[in-house]
Structure formats: C-alpha cells, structure tokens
C-alpha cells in the first residue's frame, strides 16, 4: 500500500471517529466506549441515536457525490466537471421542491433521479449540434446556466409554499444532514450499494474510453452507448445523494482530485475508490465543522461545503490557468 492510500484511509477513519466523538456536548470517551458496546447510558444515546445515523448518512452521501464527480471528470476529461456545476444537483433539488409544491408524494430518490436526468437531457439537447463535438467548456457553461435556471425556479416555487413548508424546503435546499434516522441512512446505503455494483460492471468501458474513442471502438466498445451509460450513472449517483441530504455543493468537485492526489491512483477503478473515500471524508468532516465549530449554533452542512469548496474552485482555476488548460 502506498503511503498516500494510508493517509487517505487514516483521514477517513479519523474523520469518522472525530465526528462520532465530538459535538455540541462533549461526552467522555469512556462513556462513549461503554455506550458503544452496552447500548446504555449517555454514550449510547449520543452514538446510536444522535450522531451515528448522521455520520453514516454523511459517509454515503459524500462517497456517492465523490463517485459522481470522478465519473464526470474522467468522461469529460476536465477537473471542473461535477454534477453541481453541470446543473444535475440543482435539477434534482428542483424536482423535489416542485413535488412538495404540487403535492406529489413520490419517494425522494425517484424524484431526485427524475430531476437530475431531466437536467442532463436539457443540457445535452441544448449543446447538441449534429456533426460537431461539443467542447467541454461549453458544456460546463451551459450546465451552469441550467443550474441557475433550476435554482431560480426552486426559489420561485418556495415563495408560493405555506410558511412552515417553506422553512423546511429552504433548509433542505441548502443541504443538511440534521436529524437523520437509521432508516434514512439505510436507504441511502442500500441505493448506493446497488449503484456501486452497476458501476463496477462499467469500469471496463471507462478504462477503454480513457484510451481514446477510436482505440476503444477498435477494441470492440460501443462508445456512444457506453458514454450514455456512464453519464446516466453519474446522474443517478448524485441524485441518490441529493435525495438523502439535499444539493450539498462542491463535494463532487473536490473529491476526485483530492483522492487522486493523495493516493496517486492510476487505474479507473482505483481512482473511483479514492474519490469515494475522499468524498466521504470531506462530507463527514464538513458536517462536523458545521455543527460543532461555533458553540450553540448548528449550520447546515451545505453552508460549510460552500465556504470550503468555493476557495478550492478558485484555486483550481488558477492552477488550470497556469497549466494553460483554460
């Protein structure tokens, strides 16, 4: 194992332990330890009821977003591709808000997937020019515009909601992990597991595609079909995360480069794994900082990833600029 892989694993595990051990109220390690095994006392309440489901949900949400970002960045060969910048996450968020407004009680993951796919379809339809390949940068810009439009529609719909629902919707739209239950954690993990298995069957296509489209076609890959399959995967992965925690920004953008930089992973499978681990670590740590950094004030996790992620994007842009990539 390379030292970077160890570093990433340590970061993830330390993040999870810290998120379970630290909070608004300090519970002594002895109490936590006793609570973990005996399921009794204040430690048990903290671990099994309050922090446990939240942290477990955060791990899955971060990993799903990390995978989605890694897929898109690899497909589009651009470190700026991610489901939030391309408009998929705002699309998924809009679908859930719209369902609340019109009283449609479908399960959140289904709505989020529908919204994400709709945003992707709109994006492709808008950038599709027969006979021309669309530049990645145009794709990103148009995706940004799709996201702006979806966000504007969401805030318009929220205006028309009754007061108590508007508050919930607003809180949800900023991306929050507050008050998760084991049922919710189980749902996002189950969905994530199914999607991960499907993704595993597509890793070979991804590997071939990275060799270049001509070579991949020469090796027997049906390039167009494989590409659509992978894009669809990226949308579904992001949608599963949005359904569980709202459109948390920037994790998908940061995870893959962080994972790759730490581990030096080269094969697609290794990079996906690294991105998932990095995404989970970012999400868990961001949520920890959001709820414990300021005593007595709990911020939604999305506010914290916004504060952490925006400087990253700015730094990334200046890096890309120096390399002449932009």
């Amino acid at each position: 194992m390379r030292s970077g892989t160890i570093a990433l694993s340590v970061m993830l595990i330390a993040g999870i332990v810290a998120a379970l051990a630290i909070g608004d109220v300090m519970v002594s390690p002895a109490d936590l330890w006793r609570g973990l095994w005996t399921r009794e006392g204040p430690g048990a309440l903290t671990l099994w009821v309050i922090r446990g489901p939240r942290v477990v949900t955060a791990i899955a949400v971060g990993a799903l977003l990390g995978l989605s970002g890694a897929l898109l960045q690899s497909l589009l060969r651009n470190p700026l591709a991610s489901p939030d910048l391309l408009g998929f996450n705002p699309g998924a968020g809009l679908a859930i808000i719209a369902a609340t407004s019109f009283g449609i009680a479908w399960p959140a993951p289904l709505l989020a997937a529908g919204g994400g796919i709709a945003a992707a379809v709109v994006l492709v339809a808008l950038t599709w020019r027969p006979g021309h390949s669309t530049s990645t940068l145009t794709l990103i810009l148009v995706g940004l515009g799709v996201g702006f439009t979806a966000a504007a529609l969401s805030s318009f719909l929220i205006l028309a909601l009754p007061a108590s629902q508007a508050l919930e919707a607003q809180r949800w739209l900023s991306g929050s992990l507050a008050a998760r239950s084991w049922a919710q954690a189980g749902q996002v993990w189950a969905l994530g597991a199914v999607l991960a298995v499907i993704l595993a069957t597509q890793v070979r296509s991804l590997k071939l595609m990275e060799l270049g489209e001509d070579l991949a076609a020469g090796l027997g890959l049906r390039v167009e079909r494989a590409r659509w399959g992978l894009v669809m995967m990226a949308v579904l992965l992001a949608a599963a995360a949005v359904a569980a925690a709202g459109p948390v920004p920037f994790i998908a953008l940061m995870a893959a480069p962080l994972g790759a930089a730490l581990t030096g992973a080269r094969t697609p499978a290794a990079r996906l794994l690294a991105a998932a681990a990095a995404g989970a670590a970012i999400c868990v740590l961001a949520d920890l900082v959001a709820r414990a950094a300021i005593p007595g004030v709990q911020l939604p996790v999305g506010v914290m990833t916004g504060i952490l992620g925006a400087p990253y994007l700015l730094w990334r842009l200046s890096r890309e600029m120096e390399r002449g990539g932009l």
Partner: protein
Amino acid sequence: MRTPRLDAIRPTRRAILAAMGGALAGTATAAFAPRAFAAGEIRIEHAFGEAVLPGPATRVVSLGYTTHDTLLALDVVPLATRQWFGDEPFGVWPWAREKLGDAQPPVISGEVAIETVASLQPDLIVGIGSGISEAEYAILSQIAPTVMHARGAPVYGTPWDEVTRVLARATGKDAMAEELIAQTEAQFEAARERHPDWAGQTAVAAYHFAGETGAFTSNDGRGRFLAELGFRPSETIDTLGADTFYAALSPEDLSPLDVDLLVWISSFDAAPDLVALPMRRTLAAHTQGREVFAGEVTAAALSFGSILSLPYALTQLEGDIAAALDGDPATPVASAVEAGIAP
C-alpha cells in the same frame, strides 16, 4: 450591539419566528383528551404520536418558543429554554422572571441542538409551538417523552389554556392548572364588565415589519386576546389569513385595518417606520385616534400569549384601549403619543 428588538413579533414566512396563536379551542381540547392508562402512567396523544410518561415529569426541557412561561406558571423550572426574540436573560421576560428565581437555564437558539437536550437528561421534552420536524421529533422522543401540538391543530396555534392543561397533566399539577386558568379567565371577565361598550366593536392586532404590513387573525393569540375582551374580529382579515394565523396586506391598500380599535404590535425602535407608512394616514382609525401602540414588552406579552403574559398585557393596555374608544378623537392615547404615531 444586541439592542432588544421586536422584529420577531410579526409573523414571517420563516415559521421559526412564528407566533403562538390560538387554535379553535374546541378541536384542540378533543385531541388532547386522555385515554385509559396504567396506574401512574401519563399518556398524551399529539400530532406526531403519543408521549408516555411513567409518572409526573420533573426534569423538563422546553423547546416551544413560549412554553417556558407555562411551565414557570406551574412552578416547574425548565432545564433549558428556547430563544424566540429579544435579549432577555434565559429567554424569560419580566412577567415570568419572579417565577424563575435564581435558576439559570441555558437558552437554545436557532435549530434545536439535540445533543444539548440529551446532555440535560430530561424526563419530558416540550415541543408544543417549537416548529421541530418529524425527523427531529423521532430523535428527541428517544431521549425523553416529547409532547407536540395536538393532531390537526396548527403548529403554532395551541391556545394558552390548552398548553396549560397539557403541561399540567405531564407534570402532575392538574388542580393547580385549573385554579390558574380560572383566575386568568376571571381577570378577562372583570375587564369585560368594566367596559361593556367594548362588546361587539371590531378590533385588529396589526404589525409592520421589514417592509411588510399585515394583521393577525382571530386564530392567533393576539387576535384571541382582543376577543377575550369582548371585541369582534375583522372578517376581512380572517378570510385573507384563512390558511395561517396572519394576513399580509398590500402596502397600497391597508383598508382592512380600518376597524374600531387598531392595536399595533411593534417596538418603539420601529415606530418611525410606522409613521412613514403612507397609507396608514388615510385610515379613520388613525385620524380619529383609535390606535393603541403595544411596544417592546407589551407587544412581547401579547405575542407570547401565555397564562403569565396575558394578565400582564391586560394591565398594560386597558387604560389605552379605553382612551382610544371613549368616542372623543381628542383624548390622547398614551402609548400612541409616546411612539409618535398619534394623529
């Protein structure tokens, strides 16, 4: 820098700031009706399920924006209170301060910090009028039995006597509660007897906050207070705010506020905004001196609408209401003069 402001007194789309109002008392009473229970066990049904207490609670965390008033009235000092607005120490206002004594309960502001609640090891959590979600309730109820508003009742709409009865049951103080409720009702009745001319006149409690003007419906605690004094609510306001507890008005048309008695729920700090409100000057209620200004503490007492705050509000406002409605536009209304809104 933290000057006390009563911004929060008006309702906002953000329900966190929303007010305790009065639900239609009948429906709420039925929903809180007790069921058969095992010896010593107390069961309280509510919107999110049922709270089962093994016996009367003594360690109580109050998460409702105003429920600490009711607990203090019952001589139960809460382990923690919820911050609604203002900078009162421990979130406890003057009318309840004596009951608090030397206790220094922590104040929970913003979203409910579940870990803080758990660390206090309560045996009852009061969530009536707290705006917490079902997901939050699901976790809180694993910490201690949690009581919410009645099924079918609005989140912020439990009337003061109902809150008192439910919390009395949970803390084993039913007899004391009935006595307190009777005392408070007697105070209102005495006021009605002193002012028989108030009966049947229309009255509205209005706000102007962050650029928006509106009024509270008769389902709200502030509207209900006026009804307890014999006044008739405005049908226009009740129709406009049928789905909620307030009606926002267009700044271009404030005519629904033109009733016999207009009570502004505001703060002296914000009185200049009221003076600058152009259409207010066209109201007969204004030109004929029938406006009463509830500023700072009085406005808060009306907004809390609790068994402790309402008698306080009554004492503060009775003289002004009488001056406003004496039929002579020239009689000065002290609070309106102080705020600078008198004609």
